[in-house]
């Protein structure tokens, strides 16, 4: 039993520089604030033109059970929520009262996304990213690159609380590792669903041609129209899609493959966007963070191997 617990500890809680998670916080919060932030106009439009939800999400049902609809689901209340979320986001970005700020920010974003998906439409792009934002609130992501960190260091310098200065922590990597596991789960689920429903015929080329054609035509993506007209390319991309989705989890079992799998994932999502406008930007951000921080030694070794000879030659 204790061997298993040690393994569990070894996987989830290795000592990690807190700077890594702090960089993740800054990147995740900044992208959510300046790239993926909800459109207030869109939410108000839904609120004004619908007297009830079409398919309310669990979170929205929970709120509705606690607060009457005409009190919370109003343009005024959503405008207030919008600004509270934005202010909490700025505080989380600069790391001021980091944990509570992150919690309020993540909760606000969850409410906005769940609200948007309560009118009969839902998408997969936000889910894992929003979970990551929430997990950051329960981790030491505000130790560095933060107002909190500066204040803590000042206190530490005055020797009143020297123990509060933490450059490394055993709890500074688990949110990223959870994201890695969740991405493996979601890709595996997507890949196996294709194989179980469509069978091997999913890779016949016609499937991808059809999907690419419909979406590229609708959204105006010339590369997708090109793929739709090239059967062999579609077969190749279909096989790559299935292999990538089904075998992403290998990066969990064989850590040395992880950076390559993450790089492949970035290429996969860029390709998906370029062909059909499938905007998994949140996944791209997560994959980039995983690429840099899940196996930093890989990068260091790679840089030492290829960059050092160049630099020494220059010298």
């Amino acid at each position, binding site marked *: 039993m204790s061997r298993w617990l040690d393994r*569990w500890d070894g996987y*989830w*809680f290795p000592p990690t520089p807190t700077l890594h998670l702090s960089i993740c916080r800054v990147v995740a919060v900044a992208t959510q604030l300046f790239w993926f932030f909800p459109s207030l106009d*869109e939410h108000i*439009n*839904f609120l*004004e*033109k*619908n007297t009830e939800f*079409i*398919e*309310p*999400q*669990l979170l929205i*049902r929970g709120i509705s059970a606690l607060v009457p609809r005409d009190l919370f689901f109003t343009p005024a209340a959503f405008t207030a929520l919008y600004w509270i979320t934005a202010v909490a986001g700025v505080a989380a970005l600069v790391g001021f009262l980091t944990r509570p700020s992150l919690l309020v920010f993540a909760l606000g974003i*969850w409410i906005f*996304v*769940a609200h948007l998906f309560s*009118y*009969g*439409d*839902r998408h*997969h792009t936000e*889910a*894992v990213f*929003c*979970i990551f934002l929430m*997990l950051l609130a*329960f981790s030491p992501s505000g130790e560095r690159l933060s107002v909190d960190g500066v204040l803590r260091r000042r206190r530490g310098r005055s020797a009143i609380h020297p123990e509060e200065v933490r450059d490394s922590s*055993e*709890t500074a990597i*688990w949110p990223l590792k*959870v994201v890695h*596991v*969740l991405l493996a*789960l*979601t*890709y595996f*689920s*997507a890949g196996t*669903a*294709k194989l*179980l*429903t*469509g*069978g091997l*015929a*999913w890779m*016949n080329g*016609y*499937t991808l*041609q*059809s*999907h690419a*054609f419909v979406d590229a*035509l*609708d959204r105006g993506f010339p590369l997708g*129209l090109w793929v*739709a*007209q090239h059967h062999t390319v579609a077969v190749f991309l279909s096989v790559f899609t299935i292999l990538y989705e089904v075998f992403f989890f290998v990066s969990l079992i064989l850590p040395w493959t992880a950076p390559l799998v993450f790089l492949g994932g970035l290429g996969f999502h860029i390709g998906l966007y370029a062909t059909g406008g499938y905007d998994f930007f949140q996944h791209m951000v997560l994959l980039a963070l995983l690429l840099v921080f899940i196996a930093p030694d890989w990068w260091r070794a790679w840089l030492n191997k290829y960059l050092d000879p160049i630099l020494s030659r220059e010298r």
Partner: protein
Amino acid sequence: MRRRKLLISTTILLVIGLHAVPVLHRRERGTLWPFMQWAMYKNAAAPGPIQAQKRRIIGTTSKGQAEEVTTHLLGLSITVLEARYLRPMGKGDRSAARALITRLNRGRDDPFVELRLESETYTVSDTGIVRQDNPVVAYRADSADIEVTH
């Protein structure tokens, strides 16, 4: 630290475990965001012509102004617009057109009096993409009839 790790471990197991709920509860699987089932684009297409259709509804108001019926104008998502109005109206469903016009005219000073469903079919061919215009399906609010025009 032991206590903190225990709490985090519970959180990790919970976050991962909750992803099983949409798989096990079929009825609720669409309403458990952010815990979702990831079966997207799962259906295979049979060998055959690669086709796509572009559809839009153009409304004409009593003052003669034409306006495209968008998701924003309706306050509905594209999925609902497709399922409730675009597809049924394409098949000549009058009740869908009537429901749409009622929804659109709620609180409007200049009500819609006519809806036109326009569509084109695009097909991939050896020489490129071929466009074919489909008959326009027009619905007038006062006549309660559907008129198909070319």
